[in-house]
């Protein structure tokens, strides 16, 4: 566990991809089986155990630390695992030094615990161990100088009673223990009178196994023991692991790259066998290290890493690209999925629906799984179709993230895939073929399949970039018809490019439609989390609304927390601090009104009705487009601007979908 914690700690501070890769490779090359396999599972999101709930962690801390202090700390640090790691009372403290009766009670609850924060000898303050403080020369000033009408009182009269000599003595007694932990160091002189067995540092395998097999009610005791045994870094890593929030700047892809590199394999080679494997991946490590056969994949419906596009820069990119070399198609506003099918050894059809990141989401889409009667892999967009009409993303959202997939849900939100590409067919890997050829194969494949839930994404023909710009601006005019509202832009694909996993620059471009824009006024700001934990980075903004009694007021319509650079964030943060009118915990109310306030130009993709917002509307994907330092707040937009967009979107919601708060 300590090696893994150390790795995560190093990774967390390492910004460079190649350096991260080196750290990972170094770890995988040196860590033993099965420890490294569990680490790989943790970093690729493939650990399955009963995750420790944040509430349980909080409960453990609050039994040891004043809950108010903990809440304030959590709010400041912005991360439960780190807060807990830092605030967890240090145990294994030496006994109280003689002559000092009171326990240290700076954590509130922990005071009564025999393992509470103890007093110890700080090596840097214990008089015998540290060099004496230099007696700094203090020249004697002119006492009783008339400058301040002061009168010197002659001899130094020590108000504190004991004089400066008091300080070292107190330091000696009261400083928090920072000596090496008793038991770990094996130095018996350190934990004076310490009789407990040495703390047991758990292995990763042990942590995973315990979480899998232990009764839920016993879990808190195990976790508390681990936290007692580990140091700050270890506690942090453990908590990240067991709460399932291991975000340390390492993608599954990078971890697989590092594993592959152990034996000179590309990440994609690992990816190809990946979905048939189980942690702790003994076979995988044996293979990459040349000690074993390539793992045979038992899964006939594999995930293939998808090919992704780059946003096009209208200013510079078009000049360099030849329209004749590209094929155009709509970019549908759904979620990118992969349909993979095949027959297992028993001849049974296996069907899988994967998200773009390789997550198996078959369980949530039984209606799509039924359509996978083929052997092959289709890359496409998941959409909701009603009476052959593509519904907006608002509608699709109501199908996503549902715990139970009920017949009613399936009926009201029928899933559909609009196919973009064909990666494999009948055991043949089509990815090396040029796009144009794959497209021809796809057309034949979909036609032969002839299933109502799977159709082709139509191509958009164009001769010049201007043609394409027109199509993008008004998809309805070039064949998209009533589905136009579900189109978020156009895709450009190089006709002769193979299907390359990842995001290669050049072959695929996306050109999104212009977002909606609204000028809103900043009303509240909240401190961010993670990287931005101490900056006021989340802004609630409002637009003007007529007041029934006359005049107008700002009403909040949304919240945005990106779209600005770090330099702009620093300026916004400063603005918030200098214009705070009220504080509510992590939230500050910012001065705003007809005469004051900061205008933010907000870009967004759509509007929905909302009962959670006072204004009755909620924006989709709002972000700060520009900061209008120049614009007076009184000139910001009115709520009518959003209601117009909303009225357009609402036509799409079918009668079956109940929209709360809808009056018309």
């Amino acid at each position, binding site marked *: 566990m300590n090696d893994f914690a150390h790795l995560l700690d190093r990774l967390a501070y390492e910004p460079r991809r190649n350096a991260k890769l080196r750290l990972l490779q170094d770890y995988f090359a040196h860590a033993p089986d099965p420890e490294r396999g569990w680490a790989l599972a943790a970093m690729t999101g493939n650990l399955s155990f009963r995750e420790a709930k944040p509430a349980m962690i909080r409960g453990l801390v609050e039994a040891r630390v004043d809950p108010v202090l903990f809440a304030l700390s959590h709010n400041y*640090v912005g991360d439960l695992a780190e807060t807990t790691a830092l605030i967890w009372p240090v145990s294994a403290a030496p006994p109280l030094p003689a002559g000092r009766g009171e326990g240290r009670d700076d954590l509130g609850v922990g005071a009564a615990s025999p393992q509470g924060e103890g007093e110890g000898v700080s090596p840097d303050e214990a008089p015998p161990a540290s060099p004496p403080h230099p007696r700094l020369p203090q020249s004697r000033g002119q006492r009783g100088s008339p400058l301040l009408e002061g*009168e010197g009182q002659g001899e130094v009269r020590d108000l504190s009673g004991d004089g400066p000599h008091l300080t070292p003595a107190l330091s000696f007694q009261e400083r928090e223990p920072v000596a090496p932990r008793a038991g770990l160091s094996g130095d018996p002189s350190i934990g004076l009178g310490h009789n407990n067995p040495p703390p047991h540092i758990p292995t990763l395998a042990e942590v995973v196994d315990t979480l899998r097999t232990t009764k839920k009610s016993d879990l808190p005791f195990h976790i508390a023991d681990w936290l007692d045994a580990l140091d700050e870094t270890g506690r942090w890593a453990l908590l990240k692991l067991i709460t399932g929030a291991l975000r340390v700047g390492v993608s599954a892809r990078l971890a697989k790259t590092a594993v592959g590199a152990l034996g000179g394999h590309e990440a994609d080679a690992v990816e190809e066998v990946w979905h048939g494997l189980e942690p702790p991946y003994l076979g995988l490590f044996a293979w990459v290290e040349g000690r074993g056969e390539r793992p045979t994949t038992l899964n006939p419906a594999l995930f293939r890493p998808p090919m992704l596009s780059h946003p096009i820069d209208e200013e510079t990119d078009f000049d360099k690209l030849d329209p004749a070399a590209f094929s155009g198609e709509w970019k549908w506003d759904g979620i990118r999925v992969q349909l993979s099918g095949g027959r297992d050894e028993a001849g049974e059809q296996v069907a899988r629906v994967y998200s773009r990141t390789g997550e198996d989401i078959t369980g949530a889409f039984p209606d799509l799984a039924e359509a996978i009667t083929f052997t092959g892999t289709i890359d496409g967009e998941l959409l909701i179709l009603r009476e052959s009409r593509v519904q907006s993303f608002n509608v699709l959202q109501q199908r996503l993230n549902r715990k139970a997939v009920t017949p009613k849900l399936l009926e009201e939100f029928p899933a559909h895939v609009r196919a973009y590409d064909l990666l494999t067919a009948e055991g043949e890997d089509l990815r090396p073929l040029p796009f144009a050829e794959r497209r021809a194969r796809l057309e034949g494949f979909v036609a032969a399949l002839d299933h109502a839930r799977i159709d082709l994404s139509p191509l958009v023909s164009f001769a010049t970039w201007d043609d394409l710009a027109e199509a993008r601006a008004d998809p309805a005019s070039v064949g998209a018809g009533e589905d136009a509202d579900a189109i978020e832009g156009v895709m450009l694909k190089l006709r002769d490019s193979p299907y390359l996993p990842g995001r290669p620059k050049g072959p695929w471009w996306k050109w999104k439609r212009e977002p909606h824009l609204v000028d809103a006024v900043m009303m509240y700001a909240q401190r961010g989390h993670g990287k931005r*934990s101490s900056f006021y980075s989340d802004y609630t903004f409002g637009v003007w609304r007529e007041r029934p009694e006359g005049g107008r007021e700002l009403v909040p319509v949304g919240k945005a927390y990106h779209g600005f650079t770090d330099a702009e964030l620093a300026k916004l943060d400063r603005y918030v601090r200098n214009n705070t009118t009220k504080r509510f915990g992590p939230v500050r109310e910012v001065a705003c009104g007809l005469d004051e306030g900061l205008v933010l130009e907000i870009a967004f993709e759509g509007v929905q009705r909302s009962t959670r917002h006072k204004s009755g509307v909620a924006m989709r994907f709002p972000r700060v487009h520009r900061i209008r330092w120049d614009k007076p707040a009184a000139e910001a937009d009115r709520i009518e601007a959003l209601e117009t967009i909303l009225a357009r979107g609402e036509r799409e919601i079918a009668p079956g979908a109940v929209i709360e708060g809808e009056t018309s």
Partner: protein
Amino acid sequence: MSLRAGDLLTQTREGLYCPLGGFHVDPTWPVPRALITHGHADHARAGHGKVLATGQTLRIMAVRYGEDFCEARQEAVLGEEIRIGDVTVRFAPAGHVLGSAQIAIQAQGVRVVVSGDYKRAYDPTCLPFEVVPCDVFITEATFGLPVFRMPDTKDEVKKLLDSVALFPERAHIVGAYALGKAQRVMALLREAGYDQPIYLHGAMEKLTELYKQEGIPLGDTPKVVATERGKLHGAIVLCPPSAIQDVWSRKFPDPVTSFASGWMRVRARARQKGAELPLVISDHSDWPDLCRTIRETGAGEVWVTHGQEDALVHWCGTQGIAAKPLHMLGYGDDGEAEPAAVEEPPVVSDEAAA
């Protein structure tokens, strides 16, 4: 007590004010008469009429602002009582930076101690904090949350030296405040046995020179020569935190970015600063030390000037000590941003830095 603490010290726009003595303490605006706890720019500003501070603080102010930083100055000798109007004041060491002092203000048997910024941890570059019993203790709370438990500075310095040993080809650029932190890091490096030159950014030169004049041995501390930067393989270079973001720091061989600051205790903060090698070294009291200091003063009432005051005020409540936040603006910038912003003039250009 016929006199209440609130009569002894009040809050004005300029900061804490003693009406009976007719002076401010660490005012953030120019005032006729100011008592200054220490030389950091958020506490010691130029432009006051008369200034009373320790000799070292006065000399620090003169180095930073020029000899004419105020109209008239008077040196306060540590431990000596000085009568000002109807009150008696006494300066006692605060352990924060060279010359830093707490100021005890007393009248009619009531004593208020303005601690300024202070710490209890070991610092070879200044006198240790002295506990002054009082009725009202005015404390900072820069690190006033229990997550701030500062580690042993020896281990932090060892991290730096280990990294230098591991990457002898890379320069190690350590961001540290030019007054106090930088010299403390130098002194700790010397105590750890590091005897190579410690290279300094130009903005730290004068203050480091002053420390040496005041009797703090810091060894060989040459200024970085702009044209020589590329040759400083394996060197330790100290610079103001702001210079780390500057192109100035990019001209060193494959630099390792480090910061010496209490803020490095929190990962997100360290990452925000772009620290690859965070050194948790603080010149402020950590949480356990704030708590024990309050207890040791025996104060029945605590006022919190700036920082994370909520937690400390709450803790005082659980200890039966009356406490209130003063929400003072201008100190440590709300306790969240790096005080470096006001502490050092920005490094304008490559040339200025060299």
